[in-house]
């Protein structure tokens, strides 16, 4: 009960605040637009198909009604939330009349699985490498590793993805140039399909891992160096505890700050994944966001923004809620 009140409840409040701020910003930005969103939509619709003017006028009215542009901004805001809670984000304009929510729903599994694997692997790898590099800081491989990661860390996600694509798909065609699965393969549980998915997802995942590992590695190395001079490690060393065991102690003790940090850096990794997906034409949220930009699909861009904020906030919340399992102090407080 205490845990609920002192730990879980504040996290939930934070989660609500994040979503509130995020969606409010996505609501406000379009209102500052120098152009009327309805006109933008009408113009982009007119470029796809020719309909009779009568129908276009009707559509314009219903769009204005849907976006509620004729009403007071506060009424608009509440209506926006009302629709959002029902999961209604309007129809996609480029893929009319498929609802935005369905377009996002189709892309979601790709992004989530790619992100989940890349984030967890990047996090663990960064921590393990960081711990080793700090523990064996005098070894030459540790120094080389440090230089390599230092050179990788500031590289933007886009450039990393582009370089990997150039090298491993274009110059040495080991991996496919684009897509999430081989052409013509139907989703099934066959070995062929799964192998194809892994092959297509490999480079995007590696490029996310390579960039996100940098910060993790360096913060873990710094954390471990401080831990190395703490009493319990010094004692363990004097007592002749095996290296393996000490490394485990170091790892276990840096798990907590790194879990908090992961929750906070989730937004950055997610943004990077969007860009990576665009480079690899991976069929996730990033890819549909890119096509929405190209096609001027106003509803879809807003929908993806709102969804990514909710998604990332929820991801961070889940990590926070897993925290008591890692930290006995919170569990028994």
């Amino acid at each position, binding site marked *: 009960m205490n845990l609920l009140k002192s730990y879980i409840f504040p996290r939930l409040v934070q989660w609500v605040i*994040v979503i509130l701020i995020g969606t409010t910003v996505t609501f406000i930005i379009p209102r500052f637009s120098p152009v009327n969103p309805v006109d933008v939509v009408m113009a982009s619709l007119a470029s796809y198909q020719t309909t009779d003017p009568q129908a276009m006028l009707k559509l314009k009215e219903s769009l204005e009604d849907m976006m509620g542009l004729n009403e007071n901004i506060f009424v608009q805001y509440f209506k926006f939330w009302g629709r959002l809670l029902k999961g209604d984000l309007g129809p996609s304009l480029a893929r009319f009349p498929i609802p935005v929510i369905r377009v996002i729903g189709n892309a979601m599994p790709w992004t989530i699985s790619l992100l989940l694997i890349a984030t967890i692997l990047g996090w663990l790898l960064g921590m393990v490498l960081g711990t080793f590099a700090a523990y064996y800081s005098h070894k030459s491989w540790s120094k080389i590793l440090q230089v390599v990661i230092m050179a990788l860390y*500031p*590289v933007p996600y886009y450039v990393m993805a582009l370089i990997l694509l150039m090298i491993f798909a*274009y110059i040495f065609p080991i991996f496919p140039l684009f897509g999430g699965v081989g052409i013509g393969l139907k989703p099934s549980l066959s070995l062929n399909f799964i192998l194809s998915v892994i092959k297509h997802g490999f480079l995007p995942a590696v490029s996310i891992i390579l960039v996100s590992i940098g910060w993790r590695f360096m913060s873990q190395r710094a954390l471990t160096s401080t831990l190395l001079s703490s009493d319990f490690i010094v004692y363990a060393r004097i007592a002749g505890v095996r290296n393996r065991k000490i490394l485990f102690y170091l790892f276990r003790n840096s798990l907590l700050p790194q879990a908090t940090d992961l929750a*906070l850096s989730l937004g950055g990794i997610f943004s990077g994944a969007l*860009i990576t997906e665009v480079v690899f034409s991976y069929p996730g949220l990033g890819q549909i966001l890119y096509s929405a930009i190209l096609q001027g699909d106003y509803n879809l*861009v807003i929908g993806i923004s709102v969804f990514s904020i909710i998604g990332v906030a929820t991801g961070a919340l889940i990590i926070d809620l897993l925290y008591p399992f890692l930290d006995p102090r919170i569990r028994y407080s």
Partner: protein
Amino acid sequence: MKIIKDLFKYDKRFSVGFIFVVLILFMAILSFFPPYDPTIPHTFPRDLSPSLKHILGTNSLGQDIFWILTIAVRNSLIIGGISAVISRTLAILIGSLAGYLGGRVDRVISTVCDSFVVIPRLPLLILFAFIFRGFLNPLSMAILLGFLDWAWPSKRYRSQILSLKESEFTNTARFSGAYTLEIIAEEHMPFLLSYVVADSISGFIWAIGMETSLSVLGLFDLSIPTLGTTIYWANYYKSMLLGIWWWIGSPVGALIITVIGLYLLSVGLGDFLDPKVRLQRLSK
């Protein structure tokens, strides 16, 4: 000057970063003295590979890539610089308000900060750039980026200030009768300053990366050469598939040199300016 010389000698990271940054700055300065207007298309034969006459070759539009790149580097640096100044000013203000005032102010600011840290910024930026498409110039882009990048640094400034406030020398200063402002200016500033310098450069790097991401998606004014828009046009004309590697390779290479150079410089400078590291070095 002597400091730079010393740092150059003893800190490898700094020397590599310094060389890279000087290289990039030199390119940016060159952009003011082009032998001809490099933005005009069809000045030269198309798709020439790098040669002595055209160091980085020409592109499919018949422009000299090197001279275009000088302008691109300059514009990207300007965007990064302005954005870093804005975001770090905001961050210092907000962070020190939370850190020094403490109590309820701190709790409110921290909650808001934590929320902004979690929100993924790229979708917001894309939404903004999408809706204001055609209205973004380098200045407004820099301001926009600056206003989105204060949450992380202000959180870190706050925690730095909190640990400084708890430190022994702060208490010593207080008990010997120093005023609060005096303590902040004379005792805390040297620590914070090193942090601000290193951190501003990382803001710089972030802004350049974000500008590239937005431009590559076609969400920036594509007639203005920046590192991002140069990559956009190279992609647009399928330079990679056509084997014109020098077109796509040049901006990508320049971008990598810029970010790695700036990053190494920030690490070297941060260590050099940090009183804690300096004390450690003295005691060795």
